[in-house]
């Protein structure tokens, strides 16, 4: 095992999605984690990839809060007028 070559940073980054989704075959997971045990750069890439997902969720979740989401008056009028034409 110790003599096996390590997978490259490129391979690790390409398979990151499958690793995080739990879709990587067990033998690939072992290779993946073996690379991470010796490569700080990929450890940082993995960490910041995960933070990116968390930041995206949080930044957009705030947009879904009702505070300050007023509908422009012009849009209300436009919708009312299209609705009347349909009734």
């Amino acid at each position, binding site marked *: 095992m110790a003599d096996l070559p390590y997978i490259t940073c490129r391979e690790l980054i390409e398979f990151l999605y499958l690793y995080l989704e739990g879709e990587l075959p067990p033998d690939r997971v072992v290779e993946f984690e073996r690379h991470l045990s010796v490569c700080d750069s990929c450890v940082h*890439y993995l960490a*910041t*990839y995960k933070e990116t997902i968390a930041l*995206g969720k949080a930044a957009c979740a705030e947009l879904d809060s009702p505070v300050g989401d007023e509908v422009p008056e012009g849009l*209300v009028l436009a919708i*009312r007028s299209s*609705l009347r034409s349909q009734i």
Partner: protein
Amino acid sequence: MTPDTGIPAGARDEQGSERDLVSRLRRGDEDAFEHLVREHGGRLLVVARRFLREEEEARDAVQECFLSAFRAMDRFDQASRLSTWLHRIVVNACLMRLRTRRRKPEEPIDEFLPQFQANGHQVRHPTPEWEGSAETLLARRETRSIVREAIDRLPDSYRAVLLLRDIEELSTEEAAQSLGVTANAVKIRLHRARQALRTLLEPRFRRTASC
């Protein structure tokens, strides 16, 4: 909490008033419809802006959403929430618009993806650490707008996948069905979208060497 239903009294009132609203909407009550637009329109517009980026198109999508809802009101399942139902309709309206746009050439994403040397290391090696976790960064007032601006910079097809999977939390199969692509295409696009977003955020959040 009420012993008969197990539903908190506030939620029960809300369900009751939503049922009344739906009855009025089904009778074609214009005031009820205007109430619906004022109650939900702002939030739906925010969702549409996120997908479409262009204000006029986002407003058109919201308008389409309400007209579709009006036409389909008889089919609305009262076991669902109006907000959830409208949300789904507006997302579909946005996806329809993005599909039309996709006939035009899309801006490439490659410049935001990691580049590699022949030895498999990244060209920009090593990857820097960030100043903190998402939780720490979110404590700053400007973080959310930085992230939203970065999401807006993603090309349409990548932004749509990111929004459907990471924000709307659709499954890969659901996102594939919504977009009319294969599940594998969703996986590839989502990974690229996340990588591109990471690249766009890195200059804002990377730890800088202290003196």
